[in-house]
């Protein structure tokens, strides 16, 4: 048996070559030229050790694998009490506690934490919206960020040219994004699977490139800045009212100005938007339309044989999913105060899709958990600097190996049958 030896040697050599170039050379600046120099002894020692570890690991991989079986993650179901009225009561209490906690928490948290939480909430909204299209209706959409961009630019442009306030722009953003979802839905109705994914990918890029090049309207790569923040019934969260006759929040309540008021307000606004999203989608999945989406994912021929029009079902899924991205985009523009096409690149679509897949297709709790994980973890891992994305990628690979069905797989609603005999 000399096979493991070869593969181990090969791995070690690859490791050595890669590490030598990546870590073993330091660049010294002399004037304007860079001179490569060998790194210190310590680095080379580390490289040598790492190579040895790789070699040994590859050599004894099978033995190691049999020694440490990957422990299976405890199932979430086993931690939850049994199905039934008791459980629904417990879940209700838990949900209520979480909601109350979300409203109290920002008053004790740091400004950075609240900011991060607000960002997380935006991703939760996006994840939940895409979950309709991908998780429930089973239509792989790689250009979801386009609707997010439509929502954001709707508010930015409306406020720039027509001075429309956030609260008026919010429903318009949702509607316009929904309209774009509807328009995209038409050409892709006949497509499925891979082909659909490619067309949606193209759509996402078209929107981004359009925003980038339509300089007269959108400002192109410079983006749109100074987008006004949302106000609370006419109360602005700035030191001085920008508009004539407006009173800033702190003056109205007679408290000293504090920049964190605005941050907390934005956070609470995001919480409310997310709660509405969660409720609406929760209802949708238990309504005929939600069941039709899932039925379409399962078998579109059977759908047709039962009188469901697949065209209509697909279009509603696209439209509904897009509208949530529109709301999220409008909020995003208001929070950032500045948007540019840079914010709506393909990687955003990929991250939102990762949230849905990692969370468990169709599962709301899963998507929320995954959104938290995928936005908070990269922040926490900041101290690892350039290894951050590596760790992030590794985590995703392990997650998929461990739980391919996602963090919290979707649970079917248990429906109580009442038989009146």
């Amino acid at each position, binding site marked *: 048996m000399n096979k493991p030896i070869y593969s181990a040697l090969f791995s070690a050599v690859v490791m050595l070559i890669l590490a030598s170039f990546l870590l073993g050379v330091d660049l010294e600046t002399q004037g304007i030229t860079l001179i490569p120099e060998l790194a210190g002894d310590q680095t080379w020692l580390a490289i040598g050790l790492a190579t040895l570890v790789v070699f040994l690991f590859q050599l004894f991989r099978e033995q190691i694998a049999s020694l440490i079986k990957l422990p299976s993650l405890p199932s979430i179901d086993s931690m939850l009490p049994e199905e039934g009225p008791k459980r629904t009561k417990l879940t209700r209490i838990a949900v209520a506690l979480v909601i109350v906690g979300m409203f109290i928490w920002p008053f004790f948290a740091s400004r950075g934490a609240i900011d991060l939480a607000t960002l997380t909430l935006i991703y939760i909204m996006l994840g939940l919206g895409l979950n309709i299209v991908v998780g429930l209706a089973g239509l792989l959409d790689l250009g979801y960020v386009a609707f997010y961009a439509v929502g954001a630019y709707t508010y930015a442009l409306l406020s720039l040219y027509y001075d429309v306030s956030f609260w008026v722009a919010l429903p318009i953003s949702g509607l316009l994004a929904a309209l774009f979802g509807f328009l995209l839905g038409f050409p892709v109705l006949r497509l499925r699977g891979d082909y659909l994914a490619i067309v949606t990918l193209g759509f996402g890029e078209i929107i981004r490139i359009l925003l980038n090049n339509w300089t007269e309207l959108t400002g192109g790569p410079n983006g749109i800045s100074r987008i006004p923040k949302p106000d609370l019934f006419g109360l602005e969260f700035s030191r001085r009212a920008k508009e004539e006759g407006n009173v800033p929040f702190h003056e109205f309540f007679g408290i000293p100005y504090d920049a964190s008021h605005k941050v907390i307000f934005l956070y609470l606004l995001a919480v409310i938007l997310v709660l509405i999203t969660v409720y609406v989608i929760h209802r949708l999945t238990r309504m005929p339309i939600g069941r039709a989406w899932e*039925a379409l994912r399962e078998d579109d*021929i059977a759908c*047709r*044989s039962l*009188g469901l029009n697949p065209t209509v079902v697909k279009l509603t899924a696209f439209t509904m999913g897009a509208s949530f991205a529109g709301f999220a985009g409008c909020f995003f523009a208001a929070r950032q105060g500045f948007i540019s096409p840079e914010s709506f690149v393909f990687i955003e679509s990929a991250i939102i899709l990762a949230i849905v897949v990692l969370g468990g297709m169709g599962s709301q709790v899963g998507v929320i958990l995954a959104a938290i994980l995928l936005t908070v973890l990269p922040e926490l891992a900041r101290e690892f600097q350039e290894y951050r994305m590596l760790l992030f990628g590794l985590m995703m690979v392990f997650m998929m190996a461990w739980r391919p069905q996602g963090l919290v797989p979707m649970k*079917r*609603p248990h429906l109580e*049958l009442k038989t009146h005999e």
Partner: protein
Amino acid sequence: MNKALLEVSGLSMRFGGLLAVNGVSLTVREKEIVSVIGPNGAGKTTVFNCISGFYTPTEGTILFDGEQVQGLKGHKIARKGMVRTFQHVRLFKDMTVIENLLVAQHLQMNTNLLSGFFKTPSYRAAEDRAMQNAAFWLKKVNLLEMANREAGNLSYGQQRRLEIARCMVTHPRLLMLDEPAAGLNPNETKELDELICNLRDEFDVSILLIEHDMSLVMGISDQIAVINQGTPLASGTPAEVRDNPDVIKAYLGEA
């Protein structure tokens, strides 16, 4: 004689150079069980697909309750009251049994979005009716205990019964069954036999059946149409068909 519910005449279906169905005609009267039989590859399922709107027939007319329906889309035909099952069971496998039945009642429920968000009384009533209808049919096909199981976890026989129940919750006038007995054991076939007769007698549905199981076909059919290589071979009552020398030849080969 009952009124004719489905009248198919001169139905032809051509796939490129292949004439899969050639001039098939058949009539299903109200409260009648009509079977289409024929050797494998005879074109029975193609006839079914043409009638149920999955294919657009190349030629011929299909009248459903006096109205021309050939060329209509599948979901339109289903809405007119012609519902079918499939040769290979097509359930929504990841959804529960009861959800399968609720999806089928999508059209009957016909509630708008807002009433669903706020669970208005009319929405609850519609949902309740759908659940009761579903429960009724689950009981009929003996699947009541399975209501909250995922459909994909049912045994094959149970899946077949669920597929029939899923059609029946839509209150069809014509039920089209594509080899419902395939893969069933003799006991289950007997139950199916009783179920089909019961559907006709109690619920006034007409049934169009494709089947290989001769004992089932001969036992329950009012009329039988035999197709061989896409062309109609014979038709008539079970007794007439059984004694028809052409049919015997097609099935058993030349003596």
